[in-house]
């Protein structure tokens, strides 16, 4: 959005346009399926027939450039953490990150003795929604995604930020 981002003073037209843009972005969050470990199985289960991720508009994309949301599902090792950083930087704005499961949130069951486990993916990339669980049930993942949609809908992309 380059030139238009945060440029206009707040008024009814800009606010409505903001709402429209937020609606578009929250209705079709294409997710970057980044399944690393057991939480990936739950993510696949959520995308399957019984709990359907497509009905809230999420379509799986495998290239980071075409995705909006990166769902980090599974244990992140330090070796992988460098690659996650790279992939996050390859995603196109506006991008969001969901840390799924306790390993991505804070290191999970390996928090104390895991010498090669990254204690929470928010040490390398900024996270928007944390979903606790080991692994979180599909319903929990869907709740996390709906929270993300709520979060997207509170943004003001066009409005000039004060100060």
């Amino acid at each position: 959005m380059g030139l238009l981002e945060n440029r206009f003073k707040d008024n009814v037209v800009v606010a409505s346009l903001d709402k429209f843009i937020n609606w578009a972005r929250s209705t079709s969050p294409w997710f970057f399926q980044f399944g690393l470990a057991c939480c990936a199985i739950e993510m696949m289960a959520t995308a399957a027939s019984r709990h359907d991720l497509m009905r809230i508009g999420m379509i799986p994309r495998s290239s980071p450039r075409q995705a909006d949301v990166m769902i980090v599902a599974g244990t992140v090792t330090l070796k992988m953490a460098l690659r996650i950083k790279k992939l996050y930087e390859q995603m196109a704005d506006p991008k969001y990150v969901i840390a799924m499961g306790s390993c991505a949130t804070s290191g999970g069951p390996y928090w104390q003795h895991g010498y090669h486990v990254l204690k929470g993916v928010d040490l390398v990339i900024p996270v928007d929604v944390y979903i606790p669980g080991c692994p979180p049930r599909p319903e929990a993942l869907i709740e996390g995604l709906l929270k993300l949609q709520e979060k997207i809908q509170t943004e003001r992309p066009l409005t000039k930020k004060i100060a």
Partner: protein
Amino acid sequence: MTIDQLMNWIPFGADWPALAFFAAVLVCALTVFLFIAVYALMAIYGEVKISSFMQDKVGPMGQGVGFHAGKWGLLQPVADAVKLILKEDIIPTLADKKLFIMAPFVVFIGAFISFAALPFNQHTVVSDLNIGIFYILAVGSLSVIGIILAGWGSNNKWSLYGGMRSAAQIVSYEIPAALSIITVIMLTGTLSMQGIIEFQKGTIWVILPNWIIFNNPFSFIAFFIFFISGVAECNRTPFDIPEAESELVAGAFTEYSGMRYAFFFLSEYAEMFVISAVATTAFLGGWNSPISGFFDGPGWGLFWFMGKSLFLVFVMLWFRWTFPRLRVDQLMSICWKVFLPFALVNIFGVAIWSLIIG
């Protein structure tokens, strides 16, 4: 004859013919582009919904927080399109900038200009070329250049692999497709699209419409060869190794984001429609009604043409979720070892049939 009609319509048509021609072309192009855009939105919605139903899922349902994508998720493709337009435009630093930017447009052009010869109706063709079908086959190959540009310009070895594989596949599958069209041309004796459809008026044995698919057992097979080669030309499953997710991330289109990616998407659906339309025209009777004599007017003609083409598009979507993906060597061996001999046999068969029986 739409361009000619438009030119007669335009008030300054007699004085400045060049300008009138340009204006007429612009109007037609805009109409076709709008048609492609609307059709693509519908096709994307259809694809997501139909594929979901086939997988016992429900697809985009307009569920979620706040005002969502309407009942049954009807506004979902609109939201997708708006979101893609507003995405950041990323061009990799080491990418070949000119090629990278040109690629989506070249692919789109290949699909777009084929629309110029498609007969929607008895009276609605952008330009009724007397080499109609030959023109479409020729121009449909332009998209290959676009894909190679995309693969090379991304500065990414996986994109390059994807681009090369895709180019090899499309170029190989054009041969059985063209050979199947030759059987049609042999029967009708004309290259013009409207001419081919005119040939298919009337009935065989009273009840069967005189479509080329029913003419001849050889042309029956030719239809299937043409259709399957068409599916391969669109890089659709089961022939979608170039953009297979598990193989090459997104193939030639890995590095494209936002609107540029949307263009590739658009071109793929436009190409699907072109292939279906050509198959309808050549084999299924175009805008002729299946019950000859009834439902025959211009409005009905449009209905039949769109109905048959969209049905074939639906069959392409159906294929995607029915068949597993073919490996690249299986793909190529089917083309050269199975389709090509069959297509050649078809040509001889049709010729001999016409000589002896027809």
